């Protein structure tokens, strides 16, 4: 962490919202990418971004520099996104067909067929990601979306590099199996 960021964090810990705004500007895209990687939905991802920075402001007093700041932010983003999906599962499971349940309008979109197929594949990928255990999903997102190194992933996830590799390996394998038939390259089972 450089001196400038350390000062920003210190100011934020004292309640300086301008400092939080600067942190927001620096990290909003990273947090959004993590959130979107988990929920694959724009509005939900934006809600998660909002939640993350409010939580950050409330809890930044607990940050003592034991890990790098981006690790702290990434972890908060991932945990918040996963909590969101857990809450969402409860909501949709209990109220999907109830009167008054919130349903976005079902408006058919006119798209060229090529894009339709891609959209279908994207939905398959979203569905497959949702089926992964949370730790494997987190590993896949940190690596494939954010490009973190194994070392960075280990710090963020609070585990060994060996565990990181194992989660990544099984996560990828499971996704390949779930998406078999939708991908161009066959790969090995």
């Amino acid at each position, binding site marked *: 962490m450089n001196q400038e960021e350390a000062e920003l964090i210190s100011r934020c810990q004292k309640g300086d919202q301008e400092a939080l705004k600067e942190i927001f500007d620096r990290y909003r895209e990273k947090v959004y990418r993590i959130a979107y990687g988990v929920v694959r939905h724009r*509005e*939900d991802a934006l809600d998660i971004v909002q939640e993350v920075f409010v939580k950050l402001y409330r809890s930044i007093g607990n940050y003592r520099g034991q890990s790098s700041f981006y690790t702290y932010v990434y972890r908060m983003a991932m945990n918040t996104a996963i909590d969101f999906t857990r809450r969402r599962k409860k909501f949709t499971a209990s109220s999907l067909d109830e009167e*008054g349940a919130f349903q*976005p*309008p079902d*408006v058919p979109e006119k798209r060229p067929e090529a894009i339709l197929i891609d959209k279908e594949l994207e939905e398959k990928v979203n569905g497959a990601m949702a089926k992964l255990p949370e730790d494997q999903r987190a590993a896949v997102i940190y690596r494939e979306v954010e490009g973190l190194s194994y070392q960075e992933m280990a710090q963020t996830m609070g585990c060994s590099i060996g565990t990181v590799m194992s989660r990544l390996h099984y996560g990828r394998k499971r996704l390949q199996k779930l998406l078999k038939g939708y991908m161009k390259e066959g790969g090995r089972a």
Partner: protein
Amino acid sequence: MKKSILLITLVLILSLPLSVTALAQVQARIRIIQASNTGTTVDESLRDVYRELGSLFNFTSYRLMKDLDLNLVGNKPQTVPLHGNRSLEVTLVGEYKKMAELRLRIFRGGTTVLNTQVRLAPGRTVIVGGPKHGDGVAIFAISAGF
């Protein structure tokens, strides 16, 4: 002893119904929404009014642009700046049969383009809309709590 008498007196006053103390203050919630036919986005935060919006309008997309809470005090207007040199002025003008009477005015530059007075029961929403906003229109969902 003095403090316990004060506390009891306060509790007695607070237990009196609002109509006896008169409607001196109202919390107004103003949500500024962009409605359009571009895309199918409906902001999650508009869930509570979506049914109403969906039954009234044929727009496919509703995005929350601003969500404000105003503390309205009798006859003291409060102004919310809007897009395109417009503003929305809200004034608590009185009370009528347990409803808050609000005057709503939309200005464009120095011109009053809309002047209306509505009565709102607690928690009820009135919708004012029509000003162009980007590729859609602006809708103001105004509700009062008291």
